[in-house]
Structure formats: C-alpha cells, structure tokens
C-alpha cells in the first residue's frame, strides 16, 4: 500500500511538472534576423485595417488616436493606460515574460529604453527604414532612441529642463529669481526665513531629478559600451551637485513632500513650494493639476553652475516603441510614425505636449504661443532654447529601470538621516553595480 501511494503521488507530481514545463516552454523569443518592412508593407497594413493596442499614459495621445482612426477608418486603436512610468514597465516586462497580452505599441521613457532594447524586447525600427528620420527629430531625443546600432523607438516628446517658479511668492518677499545655483540656495534661505511655510522646492529623493541635475553639472557617472558598464559618482559634475544640494537638505530648505502626491499639487497651488526644476513637459501638468496656480507661475532658464552659462539637461521624455512580441508590427509602425513624426506631432503640440520634432520646435506658432497660465508669457521660447543647450555625452544604464527603483533604498537615506548625499550615491553605485554583475554585465 505504501508503495502504491508513493507511485500515485509521483504520478501526480510528474503530471504537475509536465504541465508547468509546458507552460514555461512558450516564453522563448526569437533573436534571429529581423523581418524587413517597406513603406508599401506599412501602407498595405493601413489599407487592410485591423486592431492595435497602444499602452501609453501621455494625455495628448487621445486626440491623436481619434484623428488616426478618422483618417484610416479600417484601423481600430485601443489606447490603454497601463500605468505611468515604472508601473507600466513592470506590466510590460511581465507581459513579455509571459508571452501574452503584449501591446503592439508602448510608450517608453528614454532612460528605460536601453533595458528593453538590450533584452531584444523591442523591434529595431531600422527594419522599417526609420533611419530616414535623421534630422526630423531634435538631436537629444533622437540620440535617446538609439541603443547600439539600432533605433528602438520614435521620439514622442522631450524634457529639456527649465526653472518653473511661482512669481507671486518671489514678488511678495522681494526676492530675485535665481540664475545660478548659488543664487538658488540663497533664495531658498531667504524664502524660508521670510515665511517658514514656504520652501524653494520639494524633494524626497527622485532618481530622475538627481541624474538630470548631475547631467547638467557636467557629470557622466554612467559609461556604457555594449555590455561593459562603468558607474562612478565621484566625478566632478556629481560632486558639484551633491555639495550644493546637500546644503539645502541639511538646512531643511526643501519641503519633505513626495512629488506627484496630493500634498505636492496643493503646495504648488498655495505657494508653499515656490519652484520646480523640471522637464519642459510640465506646463500641461500644471494646467491640469494645479488650477490654483494659474497666472502665478512663470518659466525661466535653468539656474547655472557658472554665471552666464547656458547648460541644460533632459528630464524625462519618451518615445513610442514596438514590442517584438506584438502581433501587427506594420500597422503598429504606421501609428507610431503618425503619432510622432507626422500629423500627430502637430496635434500633440497643440494639446500642450513638448515636441521632439525640429519642425514643431522652430515653428513660429509654437514659439509665439502665449500661455494664459504663465501670465501670457511665451514660455516655449525659454523651453525651446533649453532644448538646444542640453549637455552632450550623457548616457543611462542599460538597467536604469531597476537602478531607479532602488534609489530610495540608498540615496533616500540622505533625506531622512545623517547620511550624506554623496555617500548615498556611493551606496547606489554599489547596489547598481551588483545588479549589473548579476545580470551578466562587465561592471567597472
């Protein structure tokens, strides 16, 4: 009896195992040479029609989808908001790993794209002759969608940084708008002394902000050559940033409110958060999220490390990419092209998005647009200038999504304890390097 029971249990186990093995056998992805598509193939796909699923959170895409469906009545585009930023990447990575439910088109931020490109999860758009768009997009975003030899997305927007400030607060306390980071720190002290409820900005540790600040300061902590990766936060640019920002943290001059929380929006509206150093996509968010700030906010160039300088950096910005596991790639590419390089780009710019196409960036209509929210200021002039002054030579890690997810474990300590920002960055560097090695990269 005992022997039989064992055998039956074994049979059951074997059955279960077989099932499991069958389930995970389907996850493989082919890494062979890619299919080539010509312009005729793409046109044929549009004529034939069909349905594609687009995962994106960018608000102006809604109108683009509507226009696209109107223009090509046979095509149905399902626009799904599968989360913003890393939440969407998690969902996307899981869908790709599972081999089902993968969208045809996905919005991916520039910092995250190398990771997807490396895993061969996204289609190299050179197979659609996307290289002919050289010159269509401004240099920063166009470089950002490249990984190695391939082009893994078409740029949708970009985020050259600028100083958004609440003019009312500055005027009230008679403080000049800072043009250098030294002035910024001085203004931070003056504002907080004048009214203890007012902070120059809020920061609780944000990987995107920190890396962009280091970028502007001329730091190049990440050096990537294929699978050889160097991480070093001890260079001059990184130190410039940590020295300055450490003062603000130590003197408690930055508000401990988490970005994008309700309190944050409230603070932007009631004047307790006086400035934001952030990407050029912010106006749309201010207009929709901070109605109380209408007329009070203005845009100024990003504060400089040297008086009279012009250096800026990118913060955020994303493109549309086509997952390799997607079903209808020709149609997916048709939509991607429409939304980023063709009519869609114009539609989105009108909707308040910051364009990545040179045509839109230099159009008089765009530059001369007066924003009632910014008191009639021609805000795009400042932002477009910033796009031209982005410091070159920056690169993100091929596993930046993960690195950013552990930012608060390490650098976050600097915001809630005596840990120095520079030590936090060092810990982040080590944790990122460890992950890189685990993933098979040659680190440092």
């Amino acid at each position, binding site marked *: 009896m005992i022997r039989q029971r064992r055998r039956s249990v074994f049979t059951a186990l074997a059955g*279960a195992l077989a*099932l499991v093995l069958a389930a995970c056998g389907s996850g493989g992805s082919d890494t062979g040479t890619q299919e080539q598509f010509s312009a005729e193939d793409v046109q044929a796909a549009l004529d034939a029609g069909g349905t594609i699923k687009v995962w994106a959170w960018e608000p102006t895409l809604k109108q683009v989808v509507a226009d696209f469906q109107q223009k090509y009545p046979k095509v149905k585009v399902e626009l799904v908001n599968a989360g913003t930023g890393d939440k969407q990447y998690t969902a996307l990575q899981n869908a790709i790993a599972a081999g089902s439910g993968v969208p045809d088109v996905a919005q991916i931020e520039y910092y995250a794209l190398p990771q997807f490109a490396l895993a061969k999860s996204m289609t190299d758009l050179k197979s659609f002759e996307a290289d002919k768009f050289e010159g269509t997009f401004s240099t920063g975003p166009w470089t950002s969608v490249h990984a190695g030899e391939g082009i893994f997305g078409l740029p949708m927007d970009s985020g050259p940084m600028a100083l958004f400030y609440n003019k009312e607060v500055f005027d009230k306390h008679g403080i000049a708008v800072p043009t250098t980071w030294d002035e910024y720190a001085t203004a931070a002290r003056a504002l907080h002394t004048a009214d203890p409820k007012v902070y120059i900005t809020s920061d609780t540790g944000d990987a995107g902000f920190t890396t962009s600040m280091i970028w502007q300061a001329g730091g190049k902590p990440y050096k990537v050559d294929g*699978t050889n990766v160097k991480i070093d936060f001890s260079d001059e640019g990184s130190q410039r940033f940590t020295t300055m920002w450490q003062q603000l943290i130590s003197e408690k001059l930055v508000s401990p409110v988490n970005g994008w929380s309700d*309190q944050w929006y409230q603070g932007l509206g009631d004047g307790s958060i006086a400035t934001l150093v952030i990407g050029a996509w912010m106006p749309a968010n201010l207009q929709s999220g901070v109605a109380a700030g209408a007329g009070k906010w203005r845009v100024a160039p990003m504060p400089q490390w040297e008086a009279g300088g012009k250096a800026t950096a990118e913060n955020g910005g994303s493109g549309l990419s086509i997952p390799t596991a997607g079903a209808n790639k020709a149609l997916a590419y048709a939509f991607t092209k429409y939304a980023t390089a063709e009519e869609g780009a114009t539609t989105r710019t009108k909707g308040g998005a910051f364009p990545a196409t040179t045509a839109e960036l230099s159009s008089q209509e765009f530059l001369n647009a007066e924003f009632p929210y910014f008191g009639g200021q021609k805000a795009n002039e400042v932002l477009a200038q910033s796009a031209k002054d982005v410091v070159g030579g920056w690169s993100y890690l*091929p*596993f930046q999504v993960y690195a950013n997810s552990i930012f608060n474990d390490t650098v976050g300590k600097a915001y809630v304890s005596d840990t120095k920002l520079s030590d936090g960055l060092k810990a982040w560097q080590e944790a990122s390097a460890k992950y890189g090695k685990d993933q*098979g990269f040659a680190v440092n």
Partner: protein
Amino acid sequence: MAPPQPATVVPDVDESATLGADKPEARKTRKTEQPRRRRSWVGWRFVAPFLVVFALVFLAPIVYSIYLSFFQNRLVGGNSFVGLDNYGEVLTDPQFWSSVGRVSLFLVVQVPVMLFLALLVALAVDSGRLYGRNFFRLAVFLPYAVPAVVATLMWGFMYGTRFGLVGNINEAFGITLPDPLSPEWVLTAIGNIVTWEFIGYNMLIFYSALQVIPRSLYESAEIDGASQLRIITSIKLPALRGALMIATIFSIIGSFQLFNEPAILQKIAPNAITTDFTPNLYAYTLSFSGQQYNNSATVAIVMGVITMIVAYLVQLRGMRKDG
C-alpha cells in the same frame, strides 16, 4: 482485460483506464493480494478529483518555484542552469538577512503584545461583567473586517505629520510627536496597524475556546471559594492553551509574510521603507522591478522553509508543555 475476479463493489469500472500506471504482468504476480489491492484503488479513485486539484493548485506552484530556483536568467547571457548557486547567494545576501531580522524583531515584539491584548479582551468579554458586551465584541472585531489595504491607507493618512492626525495633534498642542513614518519609527507604526487589525481575530479564537469550558467548572470553583483571578489562572488559561498555540502559529506565519502594510506605506514613506524591508517585499522587488524571477523564487522557498521550522519549533515546545 481484468483477470477473473470475485464480485466487487464497482464491477464496471476499468481500473487501468483511470489510473493506468500498472502493467498486467505485475498484476499477475501479485494476484494473491488482489482483494486488498482493490480496496486501495477504489479509494484512490474517490480522492482523484481532489488530488488533481491539489497537484495543480498546491504542488505545481511549489514545484515550479523550485524549478525556477535552479536557473539564472540574465539580461546578458540568457537562461542557464546554475544548480544551487541561487541558494548560496540568498543565504549569504545581507539584504535578505536584514529583512529576516526585521520581521523577526517584529514577531518577537508585536505578536506577544497583540496576543496579550486579545487575551485580555477575550477574558473581559467572557467574564460577563462587561456592560454592552455584544457591542464591545463587535467593535473589537470590526477592524478585522476592514481590508488590510484600506486599513493601511487609513493609518497612513493619520500618521502624516503635515496633514494627518499626527500633524493636527502637533499643531493643536504645540508639541512635536516623533514622525511615525521616519525610518526609526516605521516598524512600530506597522506593528500598531497589524495589532489593530488582528486583535479582534485573535480575540474571537480565544473567546470561542472560552465558550466551550463547561460552566459547571466555574460553579464548583466558586463553591470552593476560588477568586476570579484563580478561576482565570487555573481553569481558563489551561483551557486556552490549544487556542493560544494556534493563534501563535498563525501570527508567526503572518509576521514572516508581512507585505501589505509596508508595501502600501512605501508610497508615502519611500525613504523609510526600503524595497528589502521584509522578505516578501524583497522577493516582490526582485521579481517585479528586477526581473530576477529565479532569485525571487529562491527567496520565497528559503523563507517558506524558515517559517516552517520556526512554526514547528514553537509547536513542539507547546506540545511538550501539554504533555
């Protein structure tokens, strides 16, 4: 196909069709054992539906996790069999052990406090001297009916030092309470939420155990002149030992599996709750933001084994006391 056989309970069913792992030759050689064998096969047929479900929903995930834990899938280099390497890595991973240390501390402090309070409430409700007993019982139990996610969000708002209850108290009395969401206090803050959630649940376990004590015992104790305290120590507490054991084991498992509360508070206090705050949260991060499914599976298995060992040791100790 079946060899000649005497009349049976289920004559029409062909055995080999259902569980056909048997060879006819083997059957012939064991012909003499037939009646005994038949009984056992019939039994298996009855439990087969359960076994299939059991294999699918209980065994398959475990087997799959074990299978995953033997591989290593890298961004560069792809999937490869690595044997026990993942286990070696997890067992020497300081992040893993710090998270185990954290939940162990939580277990040692929070569980006794919670069970003691639950016991106190159960005894109070059982004593029959409490005014509004039913209301009291329901009120204490109610937090358990609140989903953990909602409870945590609620407490998270209260803990806020700027707009929350803590902030309001600070403002109203001009004092500075310690920030519950700072790295030093956040584990205590989570302990408070969990205690609030589960006192009622444990109270109910104790209360129902107290209810089955024959009333006649109390009567005879009273006749003998025993005080209420004596009744508690000599009658109620010994009768509660089994229930106490069960509640303890549930709480141990619950502590080691701590996930909901820190995962939700992490959004509010990202610098205080790290991604490796508890073993479960660590496994979650490895899997969902790190794409390290293999390491994640290994952490899950190691943690499962640790939980089993601790629960078993506690049970062993409890049983020895019994005997």
